């Protein structure tokens, strides 16, 4: 079997599920003939036709809103926002309607929508093309927020997201779209939407991360293990909402130390929620203050400076070393 990239895994999941389930429709800008600007929907227009793969007019509020209307009729729309930075005008529909339709109608109508968007920085894109504002969605009751960090998890989590009867924000770390490949059997096997993934076991420090930062975190963990004998447990949160704190707390109770790494701005980022939970539920296990390594509380700079904005392997290694020395 051929190894595939993360974006190919997204395509494979869409293809698999569209073949299995007639009610799925895709919609977005440039997703039909063009196959999406990142080619996530490549060939699906040819395969499933113009009634199931819809190029919409250019309007994000519209994309979000019509998807909800479609879903209320039993379709399962998978809507693509071309970049996460263009999702903001769709907020009203996501917050006011998608997240609430089931609750508001006491289950009379439901909203099985998946909102996909490429997210995060690191590809030298223009302004607004490198956003990582997952925390905004994580604060909204009624939503689920999912972020895969490997081809296999992209495949399994996207299948789960589509099958889930409630709205899911599915953010795809675009820096990883083509960074590495994996063999991903096209078996239609979904992954759970409510638990973290332990990517590496370790006893000294728990490194909690998601999205593209999983990549740097794994490199740092390997380096720490190999060169300094510091054994990190690496957790890919993957399902940002609901947050599987049990697994994280369990790990921190074992290691006594925790570093949370994310690309988004620090203030009120998802890292804060994790750290707050640790302060509430694992206080007595902590051997050192919980650290967050995050993007700065600045606007993601134009691309010349983006590498300075994003957490680096060095910084993770350095923070881990300091933490081991804390007494």
């Amino acid at each position, binding site marked *: 079997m051929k190894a595939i990239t993360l974006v190919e895994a997204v395509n494979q999941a869409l293809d698999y599920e569209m073949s299995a389930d007639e009610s799925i*429709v895709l919609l977005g800008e440039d997703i039909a003939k063009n196959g999406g600007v990142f080619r996530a929907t490549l060939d699906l227009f040819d395969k499933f036709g113009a*009634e199931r793969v819809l190029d*919409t*007019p250019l*309007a994000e*509020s*519209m994309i*979000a*809103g*019509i*998807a*909800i*209307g*479609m*879903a*209320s*009729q*039993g*379709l399962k*729309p998978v809507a693509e926002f071309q970049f996460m930075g263009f999702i903001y*005008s769709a907020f*009203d*529909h996501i917050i*006011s*309607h998608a997240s609430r*339709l*089931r*609750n*508001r*109608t*006491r*289950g*009379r*109508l*439901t909203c099985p929508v998946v909102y996909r968007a490429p997210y995060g920085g690191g590809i030298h894109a223009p302004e607004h093309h490198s956003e990582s504002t997952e925390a905004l969605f994580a604060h909204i*009751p*009624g939503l*689920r927020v999912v972020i895969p960090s490997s081809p296999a998890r992209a495949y399994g989590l996207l299948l789960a997201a589509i099958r*889930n*009867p*409630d709205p899911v924000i599915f953010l795809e770390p675009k820096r990883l779209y083509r960074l590495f490949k994996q063999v991903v059997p096209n078996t239609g096997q979904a992954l759970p939407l*409510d638990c973290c993934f332990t990517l590496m076991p370790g006893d000294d420090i728990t490194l909690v991360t998601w999205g593209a930062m999983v990549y740097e975190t794994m490199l740092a963990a390997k380096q720490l293990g190999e060169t300094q004998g510091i054994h990190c447990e690496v957790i890919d949160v993957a399902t940002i909402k*609901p*947050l599987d*704190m*049990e697994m994280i707390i369990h790990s921190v109770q074992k290691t006594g130390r925790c570093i949370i790494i994310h690309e988004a701005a620090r203030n009120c980022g998802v890292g804060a929620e994790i750290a707050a939970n640790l302060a509430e539920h694992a206080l007595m296990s902590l051997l050192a203050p919980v650290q967050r390594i995050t993007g700065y509380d600045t606007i993601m700079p134009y691309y010349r400076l983006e590498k300075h904005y994003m957490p680096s392997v060095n910084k993770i290694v350095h923070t881990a070393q300091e933490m081991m020395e804390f007494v």
Partner: protein
Amino acid sequence: MKQFLNSQGLLTQTLPELASPSHLLQLYSDMVTLQLFDKKAINLQRTGNMSTFPPSHGQEALFIGMGRAMQATDVFCPYYRDHGTLMLRGVPMQKILSYWGGNEEGSHFGIQNQDMPITVPIASQLLLAAGVAYAIKKRKQTRAVVASCGDGGTSKGDFYESLNLAGVWKLPIVFVINNNQWAISVPQHAQTASTTIAQKSVAAGFEGFQIDGNDVIAVQYYIEQALNKARNGGGPTLIEAITYRLSDHTTADDASRYQDPDQLAQAWQKEPLARLRTYLKEKGHWSAEQEKILTEKNQQRIQQAVQAYLNQAEPEPEDMFDYLYETLPKELVKQRQSLRKTYRVEA
């Protein structure tokens, strides 16, 4: 402005087939019901049994005609002033009261129904409606969507985005704008420089026209026509219904702060019930006696709904968790337990 019955109760063109005497009596009766219901609801608000309520006064013909124009299998995407139409869609009065009385049961509607719940963020329902219309079109069903909105709502981007999509995807949808001349305190001429709201459909490349929203016959007839067109693949229509808000915006508003009393007095001359009553009386279909019976029958029905509303059990606090997701995430199960505990402690 398309019209059959003018404000003097005189015909301005031959009546359409639907306007049989019995049907006109039905429409009149529906409007009376709505008017009495609204008075009662305002009363409930004044007596502390409901928090806010947006009355229908001056727009009864629109709400009723729209409701009667739709078929059961069509889908209605209402705005917050549309309870008159919702009642004709089968939503029990008690549910309308529940909604404005702060209980989600009101949005459940209590019946099997695919209509959208009342949508508070202005004009957002129009995009939900376009999505519904696409689902209908994709499945090649002969149904259509009515998407309703106020004049103020036509200033929102969602209004235009929805029209534009309906045009380019030729969706089976009828946009009905209740132009009641006001968006709270903002008069229509401060919303837009376009002479009519109907002409806004030019931007989306399909037909739009004005109707007399105080003429219940015109309302039903032209919305029916547009729905037929939509069901038969003819695409969308924008209908601007000219009405007047003969009340405060809601019970929380005081229109005397901003409204010219003369304008209001003039608008009363065009009120929708009087003209139909005049016409029916003229034709010998209506009498003071019948009016009395109708009123009494309605009062009873409304009183029953009000009693049911007042007697209904308070919702359970945990309800706020129980319809959030199909499966409640474990963290929320804990929160739900904690709510239960707090509730018990405080009770």
